């Protein structure tokens, strides 16, 4: 299936741990994004990469580090997890030529920090 996929779907961990969320798209898109959806369902962009280059970096703690090994993958690594990091994290991608504005979202990863 052509899609944006994320793993894992659920992640439960202890405060202070380091964890990664993986995102892959097989749509041939150039640009990928990470969004955070908090407990009030508010969605906010965190990062954007275009052809493995960082282009959007919102005010996100340094504990969050995106890594793009190739243009089909954008992984999110989080160090020293805190309670406030609990949220649903969505990966998205957008195709070339559409100006980055039509974005296709993955199913989300629900992170719970205990």
């Amino acid at each position, binding site marked *: 299936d052509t899609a944006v996929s994320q793993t894992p779907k659920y992640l439960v961990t202890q405060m202070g741990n380091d964890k990664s969320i993986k995102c892959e798209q097989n749509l041939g898109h150039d640009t990928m*994004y990470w*969004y955070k959806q908090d407990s009030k*369902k508010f969605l906010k962009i965190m990062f954007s990469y275009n052809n493995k280059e960082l282009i959007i970096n919102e005010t996100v703690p340094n504990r969050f580090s995106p890594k793009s090994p190739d243009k089909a993958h954008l992984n999110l690594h989080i160090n020293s997890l805190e309670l406030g990091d609990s949220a649903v994290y969505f990966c998205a991608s957008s195709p070339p030529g559409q*100006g980055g*504005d039509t974005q296709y*979202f*993955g*199913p*989300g990863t629900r992170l719970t920090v205990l």
Partner: protein
Amino acid sequence: AQSVTQLDSHVSVSEGTPVLLRCNYSSSYSPSLFWYVQHPNKGLQLLLKYTSAATLVKGINGFEAEFKKSETSFHLTKPSAHMSDAAEYFCVVSDPPGGTSYGKLTFGQGTILTVHP
């Protein structure tokens, strides 16, 4: 800066009656506007988008939205609600081309649509 305001946090309708979800936007430029839908425990799905072509935009599942520049609005409508329409709906504006944050989507607060039998 771009922003969107969804005027209702909850909308409740009966099956078969019209749906209206309201959204106002603020933009210094001619905006790109979108509606996304999120079903419970699911990801986000694009319903429709406006990018300065026709002001009345038709989307999937019978939804449509009308861009009204004079009112800075982009309300989402559907003539007849189905039970399967129950979800949360997000109005979204995109940063314009040419800037360093091109592609950045700014989401509204969301409107939860409940459909009663």
